[in-house]
């Protein structure tokens, strides 16, 4: 078996175009003005459901809460036949085993945050141990956070090495790298961090932890999608994208899908390459689907509490 040489940081990995913030904002504003017809809307809503990483990342998470969330992942709304399941459940490492057991036999993946989530303020050895623990417990995907402090200090090599070591610790699990764009200063930083993460071995790049405001926004996501596109043009390798935090309405989710389709194209319109990190989005999408089916506006009272 061919041994992959360890990746080494090179300053050229950060070379990229300067980001025109006004241009990005104007471009994203246009994604919100597309006319989507009823049939496409329904397809978009169902695809959104399939792309959701149903998430609970609270200090108060318990076995019961995680089991309940897993049940929801498999039974989004039993009153309607033929609904898909969500893509994955996203939990803390200590709940991976519970989730794995609850989701046995289904195609729903278990994603686990790791590396001293959400701040990432810990020693590398602890972050690696955190990652290995989650993988050993059965996590299919690891959501790591980068050291934003080091990134802002300009210690790019440190951040690069950290991501590369976590990637090595992941084994077969897919690695999502959270940039926490709300803590990066500018869209230029977002571009730089995206390139760094991809070069260091990220399978997915992800906007936010959901613990910081602002979380995912259309402009930040567009910059990341364009980084993925440039990487694809250069290398032919596809990288996944996961906006997380603050996407709670179907309308906004559809705006994201429009942006995805117009930036990366139909190949990425699949849960393998695009995810929504969200907790309340699922119910909102279900209410929209119910509205299309029943012809009247819905109430949250008739959908499961999550």
């Amino acid at each position, binding site marked *: 078996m061919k041994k992959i040489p360890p990746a080494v940081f090179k300053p050229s990995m950060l070379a990229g175009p300067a980001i025109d913030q006004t241009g990005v904002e104007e471009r994203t504003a246009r994604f919100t003005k597309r006319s989507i017809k009823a049939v496409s809307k329904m397809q978009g809503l169902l695809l959104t459901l399939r792309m959701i990483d149903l998430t609970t990342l609270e200090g108060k998470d318990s076995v019961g809460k995680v089991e309940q969330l897993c049940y929801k992942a498999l039974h989004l709304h039993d009153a309607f036949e033929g609904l898909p399941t969500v893509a994955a459940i996203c939990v803390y490492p200590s709940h991976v085993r519970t989730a794995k057991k609850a989701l046995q036999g289904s195609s729903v993946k278990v994603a686990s945050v790791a590396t001293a989530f959400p701040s990432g303020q810990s020693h590398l050895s602890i972050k690696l141990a955190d990652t290995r623990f989650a993988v050993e417990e059965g996590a299919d995907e690891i959501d790591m956070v980068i050291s934003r402090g080091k990134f802002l200090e300009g210690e790019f090599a440190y951040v690069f090495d950290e991501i590369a070591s976590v990637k090595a610790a992941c084994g077969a699990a897919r690695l999502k790298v959270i940039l926490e764009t709300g803590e990066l200063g500018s869209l230029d930083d977002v571009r730089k961090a995206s390139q760094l993460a991809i070069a260091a071995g990220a399978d997915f790049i992800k906007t936010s932890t959901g613990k910081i405001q602002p979380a995912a926004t259309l402009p930040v996501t567009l910059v990341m999608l364009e980084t993925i596109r440039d990487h694809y043009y250069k290398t032919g390798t596809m990288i996944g994208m996961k906006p997380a935090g603050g996407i709670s309405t179907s309308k906004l989710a559809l705006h994201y899908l429009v942006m995805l389709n117009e930036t990366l194209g139909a190949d990425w319109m699949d849960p393998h390459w695009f995810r929504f990190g969200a907790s309340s989005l699922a119910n909102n999408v279900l209410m929209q689907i119910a509205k299309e089916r029943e012809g*009247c506006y819905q*109430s949250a*009272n008739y959908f499961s509490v999550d």
Partner: protein
Amino acid sequence: MKKPQNRISVLKTYKLYIGGQFPRTESGRSIAALDAKGNKIANLCMASRKDGREAIVAARAALGGWNQRAANNRGQILYRIAEMLEARKDQFIAELQLQGLSRVAALAETNGAIDRWIYYAGWCDKYQALFSTVNPVASSHYNFSVCEPMGVVTIFAPTSPLLGLTSVLAPCLAGGNTAVVIADEKRSLCAISLAEVLNSSDVPGGVVNILTGSKAELLPWLAEHRDVNALVYTERDPATLSSLRTRATGNLKRVIHWPYTNWSLNKAQSPHLIMDLQEIKTTWHPIQQITGSGASY
């Protein structure tokens, strides 16, 4: 010599009132507001079903805060509405006259509305004591029945543009409900001006939402909306009433019919109108006798 007209008058834009904001309709449609002679006096928004949906979302979000407020505080806010209305009386009288009321009738309509806000301001913290009960039961329980607001109420406003609107809105708010009002189609100017009064009277955003437009177009959507708890209808069209009752069955909404024709009468104001928009919750609380004297807690 006649003085030349050298200034173009600035006509007011009447927009919708949703969630404490004055947005234009998302549909971009407008309707002409006409004066009594049929001349166009302003453009009004013609609300779409999506505006209706936004209004319901705003009303639902505002419900918890409004109904958990101390009852006397709700009374203070209703009183404040009356004060602000009094301060802007001339505007309402002028608007009513523009829409065809005589000076006397316009004055009576405005004064009546102010007095009605005061009337219901007083009732805010009193109807509970009158209508709640401690019930006699045959077991060791205290048994209470207390009033609770129904929730989000959709009001199809009466044709009386200010007094009638106030007479249906005030009991709804006094009881801790939030409202989405579909203004009368022919005379909707005062409804939006009233929104400006509400907006400057400490009424939290979303507690009252006011839409102008076609009643026939909005009615099915709002009557079938699963997040609406009650409908108030004031006209006497049996077909509309029956349509409301049918459409309300999806989530068992209450349909309340207040078919008053003259809102200036005293019988058009009553704490029973507050009660029409209340649910009764009964609670059983176990009691135990702890001493020989029969004292209990």
